[in-house]
């Protein structure tokens, strides 16, 4: 790999140190054999057909950056950001490259070199790591949003805000809840119920502030099935926005904050209705726990084993009987959240729940496991691309003519609502837990 066109940029000591830090990923990077199988499933590549948008391109660029075969760190970081972290590539990679590990660490290393923008610093360090301030700020926004937004699609319950298009684009979004979940239910500390189980409940930011009804539904399910709930007050974000933004240290602050709150509560499982929170706690917390106190590392390891999403908890742990209902009804289809299906391997569970619901007929859409294009902060930074990817999802949904689109991830739900609303589709987007809770 040595006979390579030299790059234009001078190699500064800072670049040398960047390359040296990236070289620590060399053992991971080298396992990519450039077969290109990731191109087949990458949603971003599917939309742009640009090699640098696919995993193979990004891994090659990181390898070149670490070997001074290119020195344009900013461009490489820009390419790294054009990734939903959906993990689709990892499911088709024959060499088993640990792609998510590479991307999360590389984002951190290159971000360190380039420095965080002031907005990112404010969001990751000032806001997300301080749940009190974050809640207060969004609480005020919720009260005043009525002044700026107007209805976009009544069936979906979406709004738009033309005054702020420069900031939020032409997005159609669900409004901030007038009463977030944490205001109604700041904390819980119940004994194990008839099931003999006690769980920690991690609602997640989007559930708390946009879809409190999903948190209520989850609590209803747990109580109906005799599960005691432990909910510490003042939980912070799970950390994924900071982690994907390359601010590993802010992510670690959030993890430590949450660990301290979770530590005292003895519980059998940690339950969340958010696919992204579940996969972050289960898969990513252990990956960024280097340097943590042994007790914290131990807790992270036990959370890895205990964390699960509400649909898998219902079927796999509570073993709720879910007979398939025949007889038709309103049409419901299901969108696989990447963080549930590709990270946690949960896909049959939510379907089993939906197929058991009285009054519904389950229909499978094409490419149900293809990413919706949300990617959390991805949609904020690359709205056009996100919309392009989302349109394919919308078209697959529309083709099966459902009355309701179910998902088990609040971030996906927001994206689906936006895409359907933009297309003027009169259908509902609901969390599987909400639909199941209604039958109880």
């Amino acid at each position: 790999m040595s006979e390579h066109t030299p790059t234009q940029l001078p190699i500064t000591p800072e670049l040398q140190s960047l390359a040296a830090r990236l070289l620590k990923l060399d053992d991971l990077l080298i396992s990519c054999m450039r077969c290109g199988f990731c191109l087949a499933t990458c949603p971003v590549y599917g939309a742009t057909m640009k090699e640098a948008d696919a995993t193979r391109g990004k891994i090659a660029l990181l390898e070149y950056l670490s070997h001074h075969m290119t020195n344009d760190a900013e461009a490489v970081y820009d390419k790294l950001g054009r990734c939903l972290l959906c993990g689709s590539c990892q499911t088709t990679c024959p060499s088993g490259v640990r792609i998510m590990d590479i991307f999360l660490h590389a984002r951190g290393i290159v971000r360190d070199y380039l420095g965080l923008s002031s907005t990112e610093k404010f969001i990751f360090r000032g806001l997300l790591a301080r749940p009190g301030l974050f809640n207060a700020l969004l609480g005020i926004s919720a009260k005043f949003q009525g002044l700026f937004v107007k209805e976009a699609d009544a069936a979906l319950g979406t709004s738009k805000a033309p005054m702020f298009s420069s900031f939020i684009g032409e997005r159609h979004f669900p409004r901030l809840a007038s009463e977030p979940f944490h205001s109604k239910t700041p904390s819980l500390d119940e004994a194990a119920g008839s099931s003999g189980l006690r769980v920690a409940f991690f609602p997640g930011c989007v559930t708390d502030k946009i879809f409190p009804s999903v948190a209520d539904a989850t609590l209803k399910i747990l109580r109906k099935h005799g599960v005691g709930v432990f909910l510490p007050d003042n939980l912070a974000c799970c950390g994924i926005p900071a982690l994907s933004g390359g601010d590993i240290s802010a992510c670690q602050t959030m993890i430590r904050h949450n660990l301290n709150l979770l530590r005292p509560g003895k519980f059998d499982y940690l339950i969340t209705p958010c696919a992204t929170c579940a996969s972050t706690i289960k898969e990513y917390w252990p990956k960024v726990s280097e340097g943590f106190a042994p007790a914290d590392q131990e807790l992270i390891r036990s959370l890895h084993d205990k964390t699960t999403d509400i649909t898998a908890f219902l079927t796999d742990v509570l073993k709720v009987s879910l007979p398939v209902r025949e007889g038709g009804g309103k049409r419901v289809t299901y969108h696989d959240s990447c963080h549930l299906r590709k990270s946690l391997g949960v896909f049959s569970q939510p379907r089993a729940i939906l197929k058991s619901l009285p009054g519904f007929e389950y229909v499978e859409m094409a490419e149900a496991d293809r990413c919706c294009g949300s990617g959390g902060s991805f949609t904020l930074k690359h709205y056009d691309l996100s919309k392009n990817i989302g349109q394919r999802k919308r078209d697959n949904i529309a083709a099966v003519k459902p009355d309701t689109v179910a998902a088990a991830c609040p971030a996906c739900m927001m994206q689906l609502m936006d895409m359907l609303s933009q297309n003027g589709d009169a259908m509902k987007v609901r969390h599987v837990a909400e639909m199941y809770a209604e039958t109880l």
Partner: protein
Amino acid sequence: MPINPALAKEFENVVGKEQVFTEEADLQSYSYDAAVLAPVRPAIVAAPTTQEQLCKTVRLAYENGLPITVRGSGTNLSGSTIPQGNGIVILTNRVNKILEINEEDLYAVVEPGVITAQFAAAVAAKGLFYPPDPGSQSVSTLGGNIAHNAGGLRGLKYGVTKDYVMGMEVVDYRGELIKTGSRTVKYVTGYNMAALMAASEGTLGVFSNIVVKLVPPPKASKALLAEFDDVNKASETVAGIIASHVVPCTLEFLDNNCIRYVEADTKAGLPVDAAALLLIEVDGGHTQLVEEDADKVMGVCRKCGSTNIRVAQNAEEKFKIWEARRNALPALARAKPTTVLEDATVPRSQVPAMVAAVNAIAKKYNLEVGTFGHAGDGNLHPTILCDRRDKEEFARVEAAVDEIFDVALSLKGTLSGEHGIGKAKAKWMEKETNRATIEFNKNLRLALDPKMLFNAGNKFV
């Protein structure tokens, strides 16, 4: 070498500003393909989206003397899409429409950037069959398949990509569209240039619209797995099956090393002491015929000394039987960082000699190797596992690959069954043929490419 900005602007005028890449990071991402070779950054990349843009892009590049590398998805294993430093990469992956699937006359017309598996699925949705199934089909383009005459698992019965090309339009060095072939079964009105284009590796022109043949799909199939304690017995079985006038649609081989790697990776319960496995599938138009063929195959396996035979009784078991073959490349690829996947091909009867030679060479150079492949085609994939960062080891790998080629040629075989020559094996071409052949092919090339700009440095050099 940076491109002249005025020329870059001209390309933008042809294909649109968004479809021309000159930034460092973008150029770097077109510097490699799946071959284990040094990357070379091109000067510019252009991505036409229509046939007209494709023609104009070729003309502009040729007039300005830019070495031209055409790239579909960049999955080839021979380095044939690694560009020249002062050259242009012309992407065909956005010229990707299926223009027609003709169910009456059993052909389809496609643009070169259509993805193989997506095309096969679209054809299957109409109740028809496009058999070529290269390993990279989920991402490879049909244009790239033709440029490398891609094979796959179904070669023995159904043939390879070239057997499905009925005609095409080729963009020549002037940017003009040349027509060859036809939508008819019979065609004798011109040189058979469509056949010439198969395996031309981007050296003769740029493919545009392609007419491919379709066939009715088999209505029934049956898969079985046979274990052997001796590679020779497996090879005799292959010969015996053909001699019994059964042509399986797939007849795959795994050697002992490969079986061990797969078992270590998957814990699927494979017989790690077996010298070889044959995975055999027969298909046809009628269940009874297929059953009879499967019985014949089993008879041959027993007669040749197979120690154990497993027959799939349903779709699930069939999926399970094929698991070992599906996992062959992943298991080998996961064992070590670098996977050097070769495809030297020998006459079917020479498979045991080839496997023995590969293992002897690996031992001589102290390298890890696993061999799997298409036994019915004599097309083996000796796969050397190494770490390209270890220069001393990689020198041994290169020496071993050279010897593997020597053996393949001495067994009256060929350098490459389906991966192509590209940059990786160009220096070997004269050894397989002779000087006169190289000169002849270069003259042919010069007639179609007077400035030698189409994929210079590949195939015949």
